[in-house]
């Protein structure tokens, strides 16, 4: 076995995992605060990326477009809370889950209705090519863009951690995540908090959308990355930000390694199901994921 090649695949997988984790973060945020499994996260990523790219293509300045898209995503978050979640308070989780699937359809239709359905390219100014010095000195090809994505993910997690730990709103968010009713009882405005969480999830979706858009182009297929994030979620645990990151790394690395070393024996195309089966086997040992909250059953 060629260790350089192995390292290259491993690093590529880990960095791809970071990209998955970016999407998974959005799921975790909403699940933590409202117990809703938001299937529409993928559609939100698509919506954000498409809005941003269309604004830039219409001649808007990069940063202004970023701010405008952020404003749109925050507005979207508030609108979702108002129109979908508020009327569905106290419904069983499966109903809320179905509502977010309906939301997925609405968002997919809406974004393509407004901006058209042709694919766009997205340039962030970071070339997606192997770094010179690394490939010359160690003969390992690692894309500069992947490292940039990892850096962005790191900053994002740090910012979120600061936001959750140090600010007043962040503390309120954690209180709501622990117990809705107790949070209400001490005077935390639940509706505002939910709107904020969805807005923050919109922000995370924007970041993920930029990264994925720059990597694969902004197109309809972007909505399917939600499916990539699901095994990351169950592996890491639905309630844990750290779980999303670690789960993403594990899924990314094992998926790439399996494709390269196992793929030739079974005819390739493992990527579509391998993460799921891996996560499934893992769940058999730890039913609540790596960092999920332990579930205690009471009669």
């Amino acid at each position, binding site marked *: 076995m060629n260790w350089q090649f192995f390292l290259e695949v491993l690093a590529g997988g880990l960095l791809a995992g970071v990209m998955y984790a970016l999407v998974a973060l959005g799921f975790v945020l909403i699940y933590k605060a409202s117990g809703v499994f938001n299937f529409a996260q993928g559609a939100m990523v698509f919506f954000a990326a498409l809005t941003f790219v269309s604004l830039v293509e219409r001649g808007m300045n990069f940063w202004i477009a970023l701010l405008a898209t952020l404003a749109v995503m925050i507005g979207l978050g508030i609108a979702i809370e108002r129109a979908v979640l508020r009327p*569905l308070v106290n419904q069983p989780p499966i109903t809320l889950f*179905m509502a977010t699937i*309906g939301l997925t359809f609405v968002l997919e239709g809406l974004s*393509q209705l407004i901006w058209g359905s042709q694919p766009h390219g997205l340039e962030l100014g970071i070339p997606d090519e192997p770094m010179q010095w690394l490939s010359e000195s160690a003969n390992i090809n690692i894309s500069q863009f992947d490292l940039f994505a990892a850096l962005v993910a790191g900053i994002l997690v740090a910012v979120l951690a600061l936001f959750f730990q140090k600010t007043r709103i962040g503390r309120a968010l954690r209180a709501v995540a622990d117990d809705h009713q107790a949070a209400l009882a001490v005077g935390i405005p639940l509706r505002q908090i939910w709107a904020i969480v969805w807005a923050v999830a919109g922000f995370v979706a924007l970041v993920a959308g930029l990264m994925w858009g720059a990597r694969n182009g902004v197109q309809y297929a972007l909505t399917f990355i939600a499916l990539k994030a699901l095994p990351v979620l169950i592996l890491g645990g639905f309630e844990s930000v750290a779980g999303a990151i670690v789960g993403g790394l594990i899924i990314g690395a094992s998926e790439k390694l399996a494709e390269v070393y196992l793929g030739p024996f079974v005819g390739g195309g493992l990527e579509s199901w391998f993460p799921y089966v891996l996560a499934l086997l893992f769940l058999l040992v730890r039913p609540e994921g790596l960092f999920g909250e332990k579930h205690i059953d009471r009669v």
Partner: protein
Amino acid sequence: MLYREAGQFKATYVEDQQIFPIRQDRIAFAILLAVAFLVVPLVGNQYWLSAILTPFLVASLATIGLNILTGYAGQLSLGTAAFMAVGAFMAYNFELRMPWMPILGSFALAGLCAAAVGMVFGLPSLRIKGFYLAVATLACQFFVLWALQRIGWFTNYSTSGVITAQKIVILGYAVVTPASKYLLTLSVVAVMALLAKNLMRSQTGRAFMAVRDMDVAAEVIGIRMMRTKLLAFAISSFYCGVAGALYAFCYLGTVEPEAFNLDISFRILFMVIVGGVGSILGSFLGAGFITLLPIFLNLVSGWIRHTFGVELDHAMLSNLELIIFGGLIIFFLIVEPLGLARLWQIGKEKLRLWPFPH
């Protein structure tokens, strides 16, 4: 005035256990069956029979299957289409490799294969619950489609991965016309719906519901968890498998594995939710609603074009359709989270007092 229980006494246990305890219900249902079996094949044109009614019936059967698992036994599954795919491809293989086998036998065996697959992927349900389980069933969805595409045996080594369902022959009578295919589908669905209805009223069904409502409590009162959960997965997958076989043989004709993608799974789940979780009648109502909705939207858009002269281009139309579809789902969940079956129940209670509500 017309629809009431007053005066209808039950003197025996058999009468007490009827599916339709009210005489008017029985009459109405008999008329419905007569219309479905006798009138519809005669008056229905080819488009209605083969493009609307047959897929509606197939979807109802799959919805009953998922409803048994999700509505009655409380295990959320997103792998319905995979079980349907197993049914479709195994029925094809049974017909191909054992040509002497009667077609209904192939369907039943295909259903059993789907049940076996369902039990394998139902094993995790013993350890994991809720959304973790839902995501885990996605493993089944992706793995089964991948296997059907990669392993040549399933598609008889066809290069395109597409299979063509064999001609259906029952007792020497070739089922080729849309009307006969519709009748075959209807018969299978009617029998299996009756079985499902009775099964859910039996000890097994009650055990399912106990597991759904609280599995720890169910275990405490002596319901064997492993047996019950796996049985739920097996029965549900059996129904989905037969539905898949019917989908391939009576509706599509030529099938590729991609025809059973995640979209179909979601669609069936929508039918369960819109129709009513834990209701056989709701399965039919939900399937009818979701099948007819796109057709209705098409009609409306055609009507708009006709009256206002606005030419909507195709991409815009399909996007609008997506938005309206999603919006209606959300609207439905907000207005009536218990589904169409609940609306039906409310309607019946109103009818009892009609026309003197006070």
